[in-house]
């Protein structure tokens, strides 16, 4: 009941006009970038970070969550009408959604995606509401050894779950850790890998790297791939997008299962909304009486992955808010933003900043409501966005990124850093190295180093501290099991 009381307090924060406006702008921007292929929520949040520094942290976080959420909704539109996912988490939706559109049922496909996302997203927020405070209470018992081993487990999970090539995932993580140690070592005062550059003494700033790796590198990638497609014509009026009773009947379990799978997969570091949508699609196909319908326009094939990707976006907030460990590139960028605001997500956040935490949680209900309304009533407006020429859109992203990065420190050095990160991100993309582990490791690298040092200080230099404390030992065992299973599976 305590959670309900706190949630009511949270609603009082969420419905304050600046926060309501932030939610509305966030879901709108998220929906737009979800519709536009080539720009993702991670890059958008990274590019908008400098703009949000003038807001209060609650409004900024509400806006970020709205963008993350909105992008999951928006990605569906291009998947269904163009067979081109606006977001990677909508890839599975193209399989049946586009087939439905070709059969003249684009409206119900978009409608069930919106309603399914709303139901699963709302159930996810309910789960988050009850689970997060409990997890935060457990996390209060975490000391440096627990944090160190948890971070090692998180990095291993990210490598394990991101992409198909684990060696490349490991390289990406290690590059992120390498970047994280650049700058003056806080304990000894020794500069590390600064190459005589005074501006690097305080370390590699996170935001320019994130903007370069995601925003600018994505522009370069979409230039190379020359993405384009033909829009399927469809009845997108209010009546046209409402699913029929038969559609609801066919989709009801897919929505619930998708929501459940999505939420729990979303909690895992590295898994994210894309993995959640894939797993839920596969599960739905396995549960289906006629699995051969999948890929030919089965509405459950739209309902399940779309419900899952929204629930996963909520699930990803659990580790971010409770233990301060982001599970994806987008939540890593949110964490970076919160640190700039002087907020450190983790168990103490629930005690010290309840208005912030519960305001953000309550805003998720508000965002969900706004999004379902937008997606049922205003789909034609978003479809019109697909007519914005790429020749105007991509340069606009570059210009916004350049000014945004400059505004961080009023310095061109950061812009050069972002351009260098863009070049690295482009090469990584071409070579199949995932960028998300690099960003996660860059954000959390210093915490890992500090935790290891503090642990060894506590234990007077003996590594036994990592195996004698039960939670730390459990995290280590899980890491070893993960690495071993990964190696065994590759040999099999």
């Amino acid at each position: 009941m305590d959670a309900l009381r706190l949630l009511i307090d949270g609603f009082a924060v969420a419905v304050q006009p600046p926060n309501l406006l932030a939610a509305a702008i966030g879901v709108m921007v998220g929906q737009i970038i979800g519709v536009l292929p080539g720009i993702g929520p991670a890059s958008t949040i990274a590019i908008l970070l400098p703009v949000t520094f003038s807001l209060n942290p609650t409004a900024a976080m509400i806006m970020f969550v709205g963008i993350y959420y909105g992008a999951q909704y928006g990605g569906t539109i291009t998947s269904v009408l163009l067979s081109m996912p606006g977001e990677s988490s909508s890839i599975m939706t193209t399989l049946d959604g586009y087939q439905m559109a070709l059969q003249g049922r684009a409206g119900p496909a978009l409608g069930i995606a919106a309603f399914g996302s709303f139901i699963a997203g709302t159930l996810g927020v309910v789960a988050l509401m009850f689970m997060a405070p409990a997890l935060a209470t457990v996390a209060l018992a975490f000391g440096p050894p627990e944090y160190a081993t948890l971070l090692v487990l998180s990095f291993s999970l990210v490598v394990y779950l991101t992409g198909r090539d684990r060696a490349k995932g490991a390289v990406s993580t290690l590059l992120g850790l390498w970047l994280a140690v650049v700058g003056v070592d806080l304990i000894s005062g020794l500069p590390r890998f600064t190459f005589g550059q005074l501006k690097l003494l305080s370390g590699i700033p996170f935001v320019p790297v994130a903007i370069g790796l995601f925003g600018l590198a994505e522009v370069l990638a979409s230039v190379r791939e020359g993405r384009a497609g033909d829009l399927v014509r469809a009845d997108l009026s209010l009546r046209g997008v409402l699913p029929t009773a038969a559609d609801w009947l066919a989709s009801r379990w897919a929505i619930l299962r998708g929501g459940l799978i999505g939420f729990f997969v979303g909690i895992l570091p590295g898994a994210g909304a894309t993995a959640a949508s894939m797993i839920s699609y596969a599960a739905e196909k396995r549960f289906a009486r006629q699995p051969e319908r999948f890929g030919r326009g089965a509405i459950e094939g739209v309902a399940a992955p779309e419900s899952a990707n929204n629930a996963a976006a909520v699930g990803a907030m659990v580790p971010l808010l409770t233990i301060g460990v982001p599970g994806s590139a987008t939540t890593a960028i949110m964490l970076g933003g919160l640190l700039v605001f002087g907020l450190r997500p983790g168990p103490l956040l629930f005690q010290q900043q309840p208005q912030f935490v519960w305001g953000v949680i309550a805003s998720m209900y508000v965002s969900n409501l706004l999004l379902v309304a937008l997606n049922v009533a205003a789909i034609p407006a978003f479809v019109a966005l697909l007519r914005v020429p790429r020749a105007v859109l991509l340069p606009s992203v570059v210009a916004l990124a350049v000014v945004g990065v400059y505004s961080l420190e009023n310095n061109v050095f950061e812009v050069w850093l972002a351009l260098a990160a863009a070049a690295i991100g482009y090469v990584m993309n071409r070579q199949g190295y995932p960028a998300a582990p690099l960003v996660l490791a860059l954000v959390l690298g210093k915490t890992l180093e500090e935790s290891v040092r503090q642990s060894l200080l506590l234990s007077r230099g003996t590594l036994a501290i990592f195996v004698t404390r039960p939670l730390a030992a459990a995290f280590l065992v899980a890491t070893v099991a993960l690495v071993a299973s990964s190696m065994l599976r590759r040999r099999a």
Partner: protein
Amino acid sequence: MPARDRPVALILLLLAAYTIAAARDMSYMQGRTPGPGFAPFWIGVGLAVASLAILIRRPTDPARAADPPAAAGSTSTLIATTAVTVMAVALAERLGMIAALVLLLGGLVRIFGGSWRSAALTAVILPLGLYILFGRWLQVPLPRGPWGF
């Protein structure tokens, strides 16, 4: 290992060797706690192992080796995009941010195949919008050129 993986893996191996060598010059342990060289040393070792794993493995999955297809003319577009962006950033402090954005946007819209009309419109409207957002609203002191903006 796909042949295209090799150059990057070799560069990573060199970076790993450099990191380990640099870490050895820092102190590995200070008393009983890790020194500034502790983390770089293990990061270097990890990078060496991971890049060696990429270097020595055999190709097992043809799909993994396949490079995603590039759109026609994309290489020249990429080079031109990079050149215009680098030039605009290099000139931002001399010409002023707004003038640099005009060059950047006008150039990029044309490079991406937009008409002269869209290039001109984008190069005027967007810098103005960004100036209002950053220069006025957020009070960011954007670099000014010889013409005062």
